[in-house]
């Protein structure tokens, strides 16, 4: 092949572009991104969580190493969790300029490792690198995609030296995700849903957003799609009347009350057929926020709602999940409080 002046220039420009934007050069991002010198598993005694999804991951994997929650104050109103969990303090989150935990507080806590879970874009990578430079504390960034939960649990567990606990959790996650995929291929693909947020229920997650990925995992079609974005959006009730979703799901009581009581919503079949599901935050959300491994339980609950064959076993599964992921024994009374109807 002749190397023309044009092809040479194109090649050089391409190399320059890849050097400037390393993310373009990566075909596949790894799940774990370490920054700074990672400590050996046996030397990790204290871990700091940087955000709500990391709270969920670390609570499941190694609560004994967790210095506190970044985003949850469970000292009141979470009686279904064991005291060892509710006594953990709320320390604040690390999120660059939106941080509520200062770097000085971070240094005073003396963590051996900081873990963040969620988005691993260049913005978060640079924030992690900056924190390492300023505090000399190693930082582990974990990709928070729900479908990667088993690998997240296993790989982070290996870093923390809790491989056997991680293997058990990963097996549960794999089971829930596998069943969800099977359901998606059969029943789920025939159903549509609308995820209502905001006081009037007119804020929602667009298809592919982290707010709805747990529901979409079951094959349900999100009625709101936008090719340009994957976050939250506002819609009008007129559009929902046109879309006629089979299910409406919300995690806020005020939203649920408005949808079920407002005359404007009566033209929607899901409302008429009482298919407006309220999955209250307890305080960890079931399907939406926080976008952590807690959503695995939400996926199972929704599948049990849609598949009557799973309903009778759900209570035992939820109690097992609480034991494994939240290290708490869920009584039958507490189960009825948290799940009045599946």
């Amino acid at each position, binding site marked *: 092949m002749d190397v023309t002046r044009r092809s040479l220039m194109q090649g050089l420009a391409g190399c320059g572009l890849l050097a400037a934007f390393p993310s373009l050069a990566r075909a596949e991002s790894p799940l774990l991104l370490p920054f700074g010198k990672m400590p050996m598993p046996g030397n990790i005694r204290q871990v700091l969580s940087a955000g*709500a999804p990391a709270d969920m991951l670390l609570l499941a994997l190694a609560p004994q190493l967790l210095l506190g929650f970044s*985003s949850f104050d469970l000292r009141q109103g979470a009686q279904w969790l064991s005291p060892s969990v509710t006594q953990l303090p709320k320390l604040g*989150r690390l*999120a660059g300029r*939106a941080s*509520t935990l200062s770097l000085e507080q971070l240094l005073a806590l003396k963590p051996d490792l900081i873990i963040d879970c969620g988005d691993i874009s260049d913005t978060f990578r640079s924030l992690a690198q900056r924190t390492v430079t300023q505090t000399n504390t190693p930082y582990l960034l974990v990709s928070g995609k729900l479908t990667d939960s088993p690998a997240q649990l296993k790989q982070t567990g290996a870093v923390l030296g809790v491989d056997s606990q991680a293997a058990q959790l990963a097996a549960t996650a794999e089971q829930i995700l596998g069943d969800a995929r099977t359901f998606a291929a059969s029943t789920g693909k025939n159903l549509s849903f609308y995820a209502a*947020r*905001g*006081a*009037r229920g*007119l*804020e929602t997650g*667009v298809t592919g957003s982290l*707010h709805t990925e747990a529901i979409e995992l079951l094959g349900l079609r999100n009625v*709101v*799609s*936008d090719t340009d974005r994957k976050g*939250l*959006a*506002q*819609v*009008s*009730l*007129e*559009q929902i*009347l*046109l879309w006629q979703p089979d299910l409406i799901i919300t*995690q*806020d009581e*005020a939203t649920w*009350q*408005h949808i079920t009581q*407002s*005359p*404007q919503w*009566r*033209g929607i079949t899901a409302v008429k057929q009482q298919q407006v599901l309220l999955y209250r935050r307890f305080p960890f*959300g079931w399907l*939406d*926020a*926080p*976008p952590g491994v807690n959503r695995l339980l939400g996926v199972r609950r929704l599948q049990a709602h849609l598949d009557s064959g799973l309903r009778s076993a759900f209570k035992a599964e939820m109690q097992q999940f609480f034991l494994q992921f939240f290290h708490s024994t869920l009584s039958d009374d507490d189960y009825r409080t948290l799940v009045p109807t599946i």
Partner: protein
Amino acid sequence: MKCVPVTAIIGLLLLSGMILALSAGKYPLGLSDISQLLTGNPPHDPRLSIVFWQIRMPRMLAALLIGAGLAAAGTTYQGMFRNPLVSPDILGVSAGAGMGASVAILLGLSMLYIQGLAFVGGLLVVALVCVIARFTRRQDPVLSLVLIGIAIGTLCGAMISLIKVLADPYTELPSITFWLLGGLNTITINDLQVAAPLTLLGLLPLWLLRWRMNLLSLPDEEASAMGVNVTRLRVIFIVSATLVTASAVAIAGIIGWVGLVVPHICRIITGANNRQLLPMSMAVGAILLLVTDTLARTVSSVELPLGILTAMIGAPFFLLLLMRRERL
């Protein structure tokens, strides 16, 4: 001779805007369906009745009311403060309302409380500005009000930022952001039943006393020499404009630029006499917000925040006016 065609054109534009707003939208609703619904005949699809009477009609009326109200408040303040850069929220009403709404969202309260706290927050901030202004008697009263309004507004802005930092980034923060960007997608007929009387109550004194607005553009001494109680008139205008703006912000969030740009457009058409300027501003404000809201709900697959669209249309238009006119 000149007035009749201009009034006719504005009237025609208003009517066209209303027909467009009622017939355009995501749910198919033709003109024949609309005429059927207006004459009381049951439509072939029962949902058309909900779309028309519960969604589009309240939304159209809200756009007209809020557009007219914000433009009237802007015209009043620009005349009263003798400043072309003044908008209805110069005394901090929007910032106060934003703070009230943000607190309500942070506490997870229902829409009734969000709107109530927004309304009360807006009124309280303007009241605070007026009280502080009473302690600055050595300064020019008009300038004092504007400067205190900016200071208190900035303080409320800082409080909103603090609430945003404390809010859950996955749940409350997006709701606060959407509220601050403004929009009419959540309007219901119940909102209008509360906000419309309050807005009209505020608009009535502005309308009846609009010729006296001209006198406030004179220096205080000259206006007093003509037998006008300047202080009392100023209080009436501030209370009325605040009531109008706070009612608008409570149900629609913060919608910028309408109250700033519309009076300037209308001064080109009618001149600076408030007898003609105020009605013209109200009509043009109503048309502008109606058209903008129709765009916000039709151009994309999801709703565009109204505050963003009014800024995108208002800012270039304002710059154009600045460039083509010698003096504002």
